[in-house]
C-alpha cells in the first residue's frame, strides 16, 4: 500500500501525470473512487479486496479528460486498475476512446474482490466475475504492484443459472426475462457505470426517430435491455459493474456473460484481451458460419 502511495505521489510531483484515478477507503469494508491531483492526497490511496469499482469508466469522461489539458503540455492520466479493469481499458483503446500513450496504468496482482460493499471478503462473498476469472495478472501495465495471489475457489452460480435458463423452454425464458425486465425503472445506472457505454448521446436518448421508448414501460424496457445487451455483445469485458449498479437487481450479468460465451464459442474471441487482435464488431471472416441463412 505504501509503495503505491509513494509511487502515485512521485508521479504527481514529477508532473508525469495530471491526475491519479484511484480508490480511497471510506470505511472498513468500503472504498470509493477518487481523482487525485494533489500529491499530498495520495496518502489515502488503497488497494485491496474491497476495491470494486471499474475506474476505467472515468477515462472517457470529458471533465476528467480536461484535466490533462490544464497545463501547457498535454499530460497523462494515471489509473489504478485491477487486471480485469485493464480489459476495459484495452477495449477503450481499441475503440479510439483513449490512447495508450495518454494513460499510465498502475495495476496489481489481484486476489479477487467482494461482490458488494459492506460484505466481509470470503469465498462466499466473492464477486461472480472473480469466480471464473482467468486473468489475475494484467495484460498491459506501466507499473505492477503486489505479489501473485490466489482467488478462493467458489461455485460458479452465474454459469449454473445460465445453464438453467438455457434448458428452459422458449416461453419460460421469455417469462423469466419479462419478469426481470419488468423491474427496470430506466434509471440507466447500468449505462452510467459501464466503461464501454461512452456515447455522449445514447441511442435511447434519441427522439427523432425514437429508437427506444424511454418510459419505463415493459415494451421500452425490453427494447432497452435487448439493445444494451446487443451493443455490448462481443465488446463487454465482463467487469460486472452494470449488474452491481442496477438498483432493481436485474441479472444483466447473465445476458452479458451468455453473449461473451457465444463470442468465445463461435469466434474464439474475448473482448479486451489484446490490442493486436481486431475487435469482433467491425471485422468479419469470409468463412464465418452461414448456418443461420436460408
Amino acid at each position, binding site marked *: 500500500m505504501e509503495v503505491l502511495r509513494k509511487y502515485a505521489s512521485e508521479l504527481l510531483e514529477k508532473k508525469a501525470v495530471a491526475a491519479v484515478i484511484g480508490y480511497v477507503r471510506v470505511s472498513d469494508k468500503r472504498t470509493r473512487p477518487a481523482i487525485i491531483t494533489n500529491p499530498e492526497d495520495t496518502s489515502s490511496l488503497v488497494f485491496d479486496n474491497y476495491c470494486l469499482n471499474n475506474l476505467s469508466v472515468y477515462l472517457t469522461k470529458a471533465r476528467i479528460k480536461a484535466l490533462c489539458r490544464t497545463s501547457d503540455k498535454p499530460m497523462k492520466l494515471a489509473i489504478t486498475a485491477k487486471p480485469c479493469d485493464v480489459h476495459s481499458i484495452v477495449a477503450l483503446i481499441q475503440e479510439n476512446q483513449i490512447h495508450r500513450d495518454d494513460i499510465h496504468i498502475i495495476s496489481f496482482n489481484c486476489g479477487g474482490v467482494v461482490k458488494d460493499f459492506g460484505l466481509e471478503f470470503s469465498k462466499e462473498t466473492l464477486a461472480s466475475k472473480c469466480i471464473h476469472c482467468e486473468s489475475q495478472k494484467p495484460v498491459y501495465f506501466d507499473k505492477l504492484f503486489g505479489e501473485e495471489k490466489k482467488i478462493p475457489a467458489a461455485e460458479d452460480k452465474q454459469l449454473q443459472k445460465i445453464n438453467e*435458463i*438455457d434448458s*428452459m423452454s*422458449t*416461453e*419460460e*425464458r*421469455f*417469462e*423469466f*426475462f*419479462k419478469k426481470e425486465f419488468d423491474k427496470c425503472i430506466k434509471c440507466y445506472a447500468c449505462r452510467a457505470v459501464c466503461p464501454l457505454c461512452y456515447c455522449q448521446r445514447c*441511442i435511447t436518448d434519441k427522439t427523432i*426517430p*425514437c*429508437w*427506444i421508448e424511454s*418510459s419505463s*414501460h*415493459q*415494451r421500452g424496457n*425490453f*427494447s432497452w435491455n*435487448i*439493445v444494451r*445487451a*446487443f451493443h455490448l*455483445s*462481443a465488446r463487454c469485458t465482463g467487469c460486472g459493474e452494470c449488474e452491481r449498479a442496477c438498483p432493481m437487481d436485474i441479472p444483466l450479468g447473465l*445476458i452479458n456473460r*451468455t*453473449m461473451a460465451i*457465444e*463470442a468465445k464459442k*463461435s*469466434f474464439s474471441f474475448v473482448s479486451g484481451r489484446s490490442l493486436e487482435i481486431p475487435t*469482433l*464488431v*467491425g*471485422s*468479419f*471472416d*469470409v468463412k*464465418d*458460419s*452461414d448456418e*443461420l*441463412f*436460408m
Partner: protein
Amino acid sequence: MDKEKWEPKIAAFVCNWCTYTGADLAGTSRIKYPSNTKLIRVMCSGSVDPVFILKAFERGADGVLVSGCHPNDCHYNAGNFHARRRWDFFHKLLDFIGIEKERLQFSWISASEGKKFADVISKITKDIKSLGPFKAYKQMNSEFTVNFPEYNESSNSINKELQ
C-alpha cells in the same frame, strides 16, 4: 380473435440489389406466394439495424425476415459479411431472451433466385402461422396506453386485434 382467420404480418428487410431484384423476378416469373410479407427496401443487408427488428415486433409484426446478397456477391463487397456476424449475435441474444427462433429468419437470395424468394416467403409464412400470433410481444402493446406518435392507426389496429 378467431385463429382460423388470423393472418400473420411479416416484415422483410431486403437489400436493393439482390433480394429485392429477386422478388421482382419472382413477380416477372409469376411465381405465387402468400401475401403476408411486405418488403422494406434498404440498400444493403449490412444497413439493417437490430432495432428495426425490435420495432417491427413492437409494431405488431409476427415475424421478420432479413435477406441480402449471397456472400461474395454483395454489391458493396462486404456489407453482408458484417451483417452475418451481427445477426449471429442478435439471433442468439433473442433466443436467450426467449423469442422463438423462427420469428426472425435470414436468407441469402440473389437477383436470379426468384423461385427461392417465393420459397423463402412461403416457408416463413408457414413457420409463423404454425407459431401463431406473437402474443408475447403483442401483450406488451396492449398494456401500453400511450399511442405511437408517428402512426396512430397501426397501434390502434393492434389493440383492436387483441380485443
